[in-house]
């Protein structure tokens, strides 16, 4: 009755053995659920040095602690494993309807070990779990497979499905796990691990109730939040053309002031994440031309073509994930693109638009819609795929690869036809596409010839489309997180809107400050990045949405929901300690598997080495080494190595918890 079920399902794909395991309450009190539960199970279950694509790796699907309790924007599910992309901790999360479905089957998580002899899928309904033959959907794309599996497994309740496409089957290291015809848990190569296990899908059709401590108190908090979101609507006169102007202002500001995050909600309600397409291009937030260009290159004649209004022109309905009152997603008509190969696609997210737009100097929005659907069906991470194409284009420009390498493709900047063809080749692992299908680090290793200079990544993972020279704290998280290169962990922009200082005693308060402060390695900036990382772990433990988080703690009241759902009555400071414990456990996972945290430092270009010569980020440099050290120090990790200190591990009680595991 605390929002979690206290049970997980453990499936050995080699033997076919399925068992239910009980998780002690103490684990939830110390690590919540979601990514925390995943870290607990994987730390204990995966032997040091295990091959990420071998039978010893464990792949888990977890729901959030608050999922299904009546709280809002807490419906994200998490995929966890040892990442084949980074060699360390791997996770990816996704919206849709799969997170409550896990709990409705009676579990907080479903974990897989071993490798099946032939393709299988797991079906769980109220009668229990069973492994079933998946040979009839193996080789089909994620959307088609999902439709077949739903049709053949609908008895009473329509199942929720997590499924890999052909990219996962072909063990592309940048493959993800798909859901609801185009949502994807994309990062860390989780789809490659699923494919390596010959696990095509997880199909959940349970209808068990999800119980919590005080459902009425949870509802009261939800109603207060929903009431605020309901009122957040932009005036009709505000059109998409306003966004690049706003970006220009943001990019030129010498001082920064924290805004109320609810403004963000109103933008999301109207446009979703593509609101950033024009705004981030002009502010300096979007990396351009493989992180070597600026808005002087991707100028108005480019960014105006991909601006938000052009994207939502094709949107015929909004898409809400489970328990979401904002509804930033959408479904778009694309029947006139690509000779009608596809009728519709989920609205491409900002990240997809940015990496297949400005990063490649591409202004053909139709090509971005088309690629979005190609990738969603194949189950390939658009962030990594876009960076792989950018890497190839820069190598081509520099003469390090030629048409002979590319199979005749003219990989010049902005060549939309060549970009589409190359993505198709990557999905099929054909010719030069096979070189790129495992991400930029592997591609540079395969090609040699000094191409690694243009492989933009952190610790093997391609970064999100947010420039660390615009928001240096983003660069800190790109470099220090146990899953490097991730744009969802923390940033100054997120911190300023989340307003943790209103509830957490040690989180530095922010008023108006000079933008230059963000570029200084100070204890204060480090405390902010530590606080952001701790809170993000809580969000990932409860199934929370990043876009809900950054409306601010005074609006989206995660701490209060947690107390109402569990009856724990912890203070925000106590919850932040849980976040610190979760993050430290993820780091310990990496240490156990031989990762040197220093090697996760982002590519030098991302830190402004060499600095850009024009645009809003002209001359900006990030003292990343000093910032990483300070971040580690304030986490209680060795400031020189990033290894959690023994006293920190002890203070957090992880030594005892892990010994018990």
């Amino acid at each position, binding site marked *: 009755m605390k929002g979690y079920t206290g049970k997980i399902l453990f499936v050995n794909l080699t033997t076919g053995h399925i068992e239910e395991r009980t998780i002690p309450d103490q684990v939830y009190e110390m690590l919540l659920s979601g990514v925390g539960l995943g870290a607990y199970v994987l730390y204990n279950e995966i032997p040091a040095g295990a091959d990420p694509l071998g039978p010893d790796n464990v792949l888990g699907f977890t729901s959030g602690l608050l999922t299904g309790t*009546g*709280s*809002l924007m807490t419906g994200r599910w998490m995929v966890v494993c040892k990442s084949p992309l980074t060699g360390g901790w791997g996770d990816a999360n996704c919206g849709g*309807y799969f997170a*409550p*479905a896990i709990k*409705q089957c009676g579990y907080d998580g479903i974990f897989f070990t071993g490798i099946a002899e032939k393709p299988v899928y797991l079906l769980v309904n109220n009668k229990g779990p069973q492994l079933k033959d998946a040979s009839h959907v193996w080789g089909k794309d994620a959307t088609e497979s999902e439709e077949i599996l739903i049709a053949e497994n*609908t008895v*009473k*309740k*329509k199942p*929720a499905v997590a499924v890999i496409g052909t990219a996962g089957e072909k063990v592309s290291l940048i493959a993800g796990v798909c859901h609801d015809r185009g949502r994807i848990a994309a990062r860390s190569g989780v789809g490659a691990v699923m494919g390596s296990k010959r696990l095509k899908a997880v199909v959940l059709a349970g*209808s068990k*109730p999800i119980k919590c401590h005080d459902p009425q108190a*949870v*509802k009261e908090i*939800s*109603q207060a939040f*929903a009431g605020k*979101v*309901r009122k957040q609507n932009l005036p*009709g006169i505000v059109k998409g053309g306003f966004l690049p102007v706003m970006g220009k202002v943001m990019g030129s500001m010498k001082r920064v002031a924290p805004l109320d995050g609810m403004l963000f909600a109103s933008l999301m*309600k*109207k446009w979703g994440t593509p609101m950033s397409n024009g705004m981030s291009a002009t502010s300096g937030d979007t990396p351009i031309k493989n992180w070597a260009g600026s808005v002087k290159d991707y100028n108005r004649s480019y960014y105006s073509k991909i601006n938000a209004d052009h994207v939502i022109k094709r*949107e*015929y*309905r*909004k898409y*809400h*994930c*489970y*328990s*979401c*009152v904002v*509804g930033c997603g*959408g479904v778009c008509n694309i029947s006139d693109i690509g000779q009608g190969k596809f009728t519709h696609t989920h609205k491409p997210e900002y990240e997809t638009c940015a990496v297949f737009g400005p990063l490649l100097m591409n202004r053909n929005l139709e090509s971005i819609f088309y690629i979005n659907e190609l990738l969603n069906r194949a189950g390939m991470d658009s962030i990594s795929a876009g960076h792989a194409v950018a890497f190839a284009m820069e190598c081509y420009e520099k003469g390090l690869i030629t048409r002979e390498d590319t199979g005749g493709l003219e990989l010049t900047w902005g060549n939309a036809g060549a970009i589409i063809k190359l993505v198709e080749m990557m999905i099929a692992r054909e010719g030069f596409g096979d070189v790129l299908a495992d991400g930029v680090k592997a591609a540079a290793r395969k090609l040699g010839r000094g191409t690694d200079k243009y492989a933009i990544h952190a610790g093997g993972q391609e970064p999100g489309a947010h420039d660390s020279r615009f928001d240096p704290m983003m660069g800190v998280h790109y470099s220090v997180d146990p899953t490097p290169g991730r744009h969802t962990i923390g940033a100054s922009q997120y911190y300023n809107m989340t307003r943790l200082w209103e509830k957490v005693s040690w989180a530095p308060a922010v008023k108006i400050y000079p933008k230059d402060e963000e570029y200084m390695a100070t204890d204060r900036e480090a405390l902010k990045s530590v606080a952001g990382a701790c809170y993000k772990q809580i969000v990932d433990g409860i199934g929370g949405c990043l876009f809900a988080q950054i409306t601010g703690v005074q609006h989206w009241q995660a701490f209060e929901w947690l107390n109402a759902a569990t009856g724990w009555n912890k203070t925000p400071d106590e919850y932040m300690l849980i976040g610190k414990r979760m993050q430290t456990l993820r780091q310990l996972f990496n240490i156990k598997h031989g990762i040197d945290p220093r090697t996760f430092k982002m590519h030098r270009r991302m830190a402004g080495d060499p600095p850009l010569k024009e645009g809003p980020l002209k001359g900006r440099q990030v003292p990343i080494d000093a910032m990483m050290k300070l971040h580690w120090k304030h986490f209680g990790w060795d400031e020189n190595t990033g290894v959690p200190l023994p006293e920190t591990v002890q203070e957090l009680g992880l030594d005892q918890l892990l010994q018990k595991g």
Partner: protein
Amino acid sequence: MARGEVIIDYQICMGCGICVQACPFSYLELSRYGNDPYKRLYPELEADHGCTGCGICAKECPLECITARKKDEKKDVPLS
């Protein structure tokens, strides 16, 4: 033949989909366009539903905007 039905107050509903996932028979779906300019979808019973009026959707709705009832109770609850 449906034995029950649900009434949703669309002035309050925000299309969060919790009721859709809660329905043990998947009779609710997000398919009704509202009056807002954003093309949001709201829940409604599917065309050939067999709603039993079990009330699980109403119980789960965080905004308390759903009323569920058995058909034989219909005369007691006025339709809005």
